[in-house]
């Protein structure tokens, strides 16, 4: 038997395959398709302090090997999460990680403090990279100064594993990664979506209500892979990789480039059972290559 266990900071994961925020709901929505306890973890829907309606419809455009979304963090707010959702999902036998969003540093901190109290949430993913909101979101993640400020404040409020999710819409992602590492982030996850746009040539109108949206799916995989490799070489904390992962080979490419764990996002829309296929595929690869522990794969790129 191969060993699929990995560690992010002090947290042990049974395997390196998680589902990405905003693409798996709270887990429950995909529970029909497979046994959720097979997963390394679930990063639940982006959560904010207060209820958010999100952006107007249309929020989606299909693009070559990918899609744009402009959901804009629709969610019922942290109170609803704590009272209604947390009790239902807290006993799932997999790590539940909450994706944390805010418009101001105070928002981030207030939300984090609430989550810090939840026994069965061992980690948060601090989203400083959402391209679909007018205030906050990506704005925090595209400069070292603001990224440092928000991570510093949240770090004080949060005692468990703090993962910071980075934006790819920057000139130098390694710098941002180093900045958040410097403020005590336990891990970085990347990439969030790339800012894109779709136009309907017949109507001469934008396809999305917000004009621009976030690009995800296989189209962005080469960019994500490059950024994971750059960040892996720049920081000491573990990296979670994502962006267009559709199968075990993709997942392995990210791990070879330096990801300690990977997240499956848009692929779930195509086939929600893909995470299980990836876990099996990684095992099969390890057996074929006689690799005992998945940790041997992480950052094993020969170049």
């Amino acid at each position, binding site marked *: 038997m191969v060993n699929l266990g990995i560690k992010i900071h002090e947290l042990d994961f049974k395997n390196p395959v998680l589902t990405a925020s*905003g693409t798996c709901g709270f887990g429950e929505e995909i529970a029909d398709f497979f046994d959720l306890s097979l997963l390394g973890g679930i990063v639940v829907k982006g959560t904010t302090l207060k209820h958010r309606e999100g952006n107007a419809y249309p929020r989606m455009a299909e693009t070559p090997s990918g899609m744009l979304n402009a959901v804009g963090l629709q969610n019922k707010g942290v109170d609803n999460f704590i009272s209604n959702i947390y009790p239902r999902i807290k006993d799932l036998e997999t790590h539940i990680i909450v994706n944390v969003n805010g418009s101001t540093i105070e928002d981030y901190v207030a939300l984090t403090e609430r989550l810090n109290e939840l026994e069965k949430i061992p980690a948060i993913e601090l989203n400083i990279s959402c391209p679909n909101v007018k205030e906050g979101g990506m704005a925090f993640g595209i400069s070292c100064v603001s990224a440092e400020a928000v991570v510093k404040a949240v770090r004080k409020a949060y005692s468990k594993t703090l993962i910071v999710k980075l934006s790819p819409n920057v000139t130098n992602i390694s710098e941002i990664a180093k900045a958040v590492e410097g403020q005590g982030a336990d891990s970085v996850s990347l990439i969030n979506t790339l800012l894109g746009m779709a136009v309907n040539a017949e109507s001469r109108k934008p396809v999305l209500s917000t004009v621009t949206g976030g690009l995800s799916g296989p189209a962005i995989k080469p960019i994500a892979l490059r950024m994971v490799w750059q960040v892996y070489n720049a920081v000491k904390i573990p990296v979670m990789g994502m962006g267009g992962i559709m199968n075990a080979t993709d997942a392995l490419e990210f791990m070879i480039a330096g990801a300690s764990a990977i997240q499956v996002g848009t692929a779930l829309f195509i086939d929600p*059972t893909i995470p299980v296929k990836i876990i099996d595929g990684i095992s099969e690869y390890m057996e074929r290559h006689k690799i005992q522990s998945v940790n041997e794969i992480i950052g094993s790129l020969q170049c």
Partner: protein
Amino acid sequence: MKKTVTDFLLIENKQLNKDNFLLVLQSPVTVSDIFPGQFINVEIKGSPEIFLRRPFSVLDVDYKKQTISLLVKILGRGSKKLTEAQPGETINAIFPLGKSFTLPDNKDHILLIGGGSGVAPMLFLSKTCQLNPANVTVLIGARSVSDHIDISEYQSYGMFYFTTEDGSLGEKGYVTDHPVFSEQFNLYNKIYACGPDLMMKAIGRKAIDEEIFCEVSLENMMACGFGVCLCCVEDTKTGHKCVCTDGPVFNVNDLKW
């Protein structure tokens, strides 16, 4: 039944007219409890331009044969490609998805209005509810007789009326121009509709005005179809609701129409 990702076998693909095809899918898993308004989300292979699945309403289910049929109208690249599939091919779909129409009972007088491929759930509903045919009126709109699909299989479930934009079949004009709609609307206590947005809004508004129960099935663009992406939302009186899980069927009173 539980949602599954299933490899169906395409056993029939019949061109009904220029743009409409009837696809019959054989299920390898037991099919149970599929109701009108529910849909399946179909993977369409073979084109680099098609990344996402495409949702299609269930037109009919044969629980004995374990088949599901779809009415596919060519609109763009996905529907086009799907209609080119050959019997014997595997078609992967996620099903069953969405909430169904509220089924009427035998005290009800119902009016079903379908436009374009929106006919599919209306036909399925006419067949499923098993009412006295005299209490079931079905109004179907199409552009022209050549876009109209043969409904003889469903004829016995209700009284059928037609409109075409060019007058080549039934009343000339839109469904909203038909006397059943313009004059007899309040003879019905339950209205069901599926079709183009403008048509559904016209029906919905009249139902709201005349305070008649009315459900419509929306076709917002979807990425996932099972409630995780939040892309398919409709703005309702209680906020953004997912068409794929809270719908596709909505009571018009809940919508901001």
